[in-house]
């Protein structure tokens, strides 16, 4: 009998020990003290856009883990023609970086070369597809290079809806960066959101909505290299648009709309990329779709610290229960003061529809701009169809391709 009790006692102790062991693996106990990571930014770290969002994700890692960040901003051919991304990688590895984030689509060649040169150092190429086995850019040989990207198309649909609910002229402009699969996907998302809320929510004639896209040529203004976004935004308003939605990293659309508004025009804008972007002119800002890279980067960093890093392609989405939670939602949308109360209510219903799956805008029939089918009747876009968007959609005005 005594032996039986002992056996039971030992079993309980064993279970408790296992539980304790499991708890010991809990993420909260991962410490980044002494851990160094590199952050390569394409624009200025305080651009109130894409690069600042990444920089703040780096600060989030420091705060959550106690890790140390090495950062280099403005890594692009115009600002720093003398350096390449792979050189920055070499330098960061020499400084002790144990994980490196390359945070622009534009850094493809450099980070792939850097990853090949330093196979023992885990790296992340944000917005890339090198670790996606089904992707067109899959690099099976680079098992130290993962990809992180947010499903921004949801937030862009929300932005489009806000514009569709607000426009009085039925004329919306989209200030695009350069032309590629990602930017076409996002422009299409905005268009679908605007078209849905213009026609389905407001009951307006779908054909009466004008949606124009103009691409400046890069993610932010480089005089002599890109079109001037200030001029493009002005041109949209001159052409009759009353809402301009930004797809670039900086806030020219909002600034120009603000100037026009100060002059008495009824115009609005939607900036992009940075949670606080509306602050430059809140009263005419309809809201801002933004990335929150912190949670995804935290998971990657923890996996590296624990020695469990695997090169994966992670297309993370919003936390529909709390769209603007900095700890859980990788994609967010902050409503702006420029939204009327009625529009805000309608927008929240739209967001609920997206969250619940009642509204799936990338559902066929949808044609590309040249009339070729993108999605057949009832077909819901797969990740592959969404990621590799080859044209703007039928009904949109603007260039789909570039040389």
């Amino acid at each position, binding site marked *: 009998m005594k032996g039986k009790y002992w056996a039971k006692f030992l079993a309980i102790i064993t279970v408790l020990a296992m539980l304790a062991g499991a708890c010991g693996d809990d993420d909260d106990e991962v410490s980044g003290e002494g851990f160094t990571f590199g952050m390569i930014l394409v624009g*200025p770290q*305080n*651009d*109130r856009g894409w690069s600042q969002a990444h920089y703040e994700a780096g600060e989030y890692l420091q705060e959550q883990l106690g890790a140390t960040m090495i950062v280099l901003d*403005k890594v692009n051919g115009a*600002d720093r023609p003398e350096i390449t991304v792979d050189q920055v990688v070499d330098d960061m590895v020499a400084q002790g970086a144990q994980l490196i984030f390359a945070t622009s689509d534009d850094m493809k060649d450099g980070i792939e070369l850097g990853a090949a040169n330093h196979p023992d150092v885990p790296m992340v190429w944000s917005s890339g597809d090198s670790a996606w086995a089904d992707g067109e850019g899959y690099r099976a040989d680079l098992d130290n290079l993962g990809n992180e990207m947010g499903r921004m198309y949801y937030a862009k649909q929300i932005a489009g809806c806000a514009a569709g609910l607000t426009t009085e002229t039925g004329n919306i402009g989209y200030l695009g960066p*350069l*032309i590629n699969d990602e930017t076409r996907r996002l422009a299409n998302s905005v268009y679908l959101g605007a078209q849905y809320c213009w026609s389905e929510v407001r009951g307006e004639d779908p054909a009466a909505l004008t949606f*124009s896209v*103009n*691409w*400046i*040529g890069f993610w932010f*203004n*480089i*005089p*002599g*290299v*890109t*079109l*001037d976004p*200030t*001029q*493009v935004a*002005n*041109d949209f308003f*001159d*052409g009759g648009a009353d809402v301009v939605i930004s797809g670039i990293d*900086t*806030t*020219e659309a909002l*600034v120009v709309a*603000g*100037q026009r508004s*100060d*002059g*008495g025009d009824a115009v609005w804008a939607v900036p992009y990329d940075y949670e*606080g972007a509306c*602050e*430059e*002119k809140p009263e005419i800002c309809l809201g801002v779709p933004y990335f929150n890279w912190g949670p995804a980067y935290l998971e990657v960093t923890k996996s590296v610290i624990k020695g469990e890093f695997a090169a994966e392609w992670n297309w993370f989405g919003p936390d529909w229960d709390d769209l603007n939670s900095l700890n859980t939602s990788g994609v967010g949308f902050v409503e702006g003061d420029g939204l009327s109360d009625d529009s805000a209510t309608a927008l929240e219903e739209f967001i609920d529809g997206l969250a619940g799956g009642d509204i799936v805008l990338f559902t066929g029939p949808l044609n590309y701009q040249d009339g070729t089918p993108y999605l057949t009747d009832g077909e819901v876009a797969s990740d592959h169809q969404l990621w590799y968007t080859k044209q703007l959609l039928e009904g949109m*005005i*603007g*260039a*789909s*391709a*570039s*040389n």
Partner: protein
Amino acid sequence: MEELATIIATASPLVYAVVGETITEKAGVINLSLDGSIMLSAMAAFATSFITGSVWLGFLAAILVSAGIAALIAFSSIKLHLNQIAVGFVLTLLAADLASFLGDPYVGERAAHVEPWAIPGLSKIPVIGDVLFDHNLSVYGSYLVVIAAYWFIFRTKRGLELQGVGERPEAAFARGIPVNRLRYIYTIIGGGLVGMAGAAFSLDVKLGWRDGLTQNFGWIALAIVIFGGWHPIRGAIGCYLFGALQTLALKLQPVWPDLSQILPILPFALMIFTLLLVYLDWFRRLGDRHPGWRRLLASDPPSGIGRIFKRE
């Protein structure tokens, strides 16, 4: 018509810079620091406006900053006999980096800016009213600066002295004109106008401050001065032409979608091409064949430009 109004408004900072540099070069001094000067003065204007809430103090700060840089160039040339091109180039790099460093706390902030103000009466004139007189004081100032510079350079005795200093400094000196003193004065005045260009960018056209806000506009201004044949009105036309080319580039995007990544650089390339064109022999012969066109097409630099004047 709204597009024309936008071209006029967005070209106004370049007009200030081109007129300022024209005056400086007319006096025989090259201020090559324009790109950095505009950047630093744009930052100074915005920061001052942010701190004080006054647009006018912002413009004043920009003028002082850029005039200070111009004074450095004049001093290094006249007193230290240093090469103006080298000093200007170094200063442009220094000023741009300084703007980036000092401007960091003001990125994305809101500050007082130039308010729209349609000129009563004039703004109601059909077509012209909308294009020219429905802007703000910064834009109207650019018109005044062009007219004033033209009148001063070509219609006054002081303007004649200015041209003499830039064309034949020795002869001007022999006539009792204080060559170097005037070079100081006009370089500083020109620099002040370049500062106004910076303020017009950050407090009006490209409202706000961020790193690289006015990048490359200084180089374009320098090119337009040459394109404009060191004439303020032709220079201003060059600025509006540049603005029109930028608008054209974006209007052509839907027409030639395949060229959408190339079109943005066209205005810059076209300005440089035009610059080459006006220097071609056949273009000059065209001016010789039609004397009436000669004045319109002339693009000869002041003879004494860049030359250090030493009193023997």
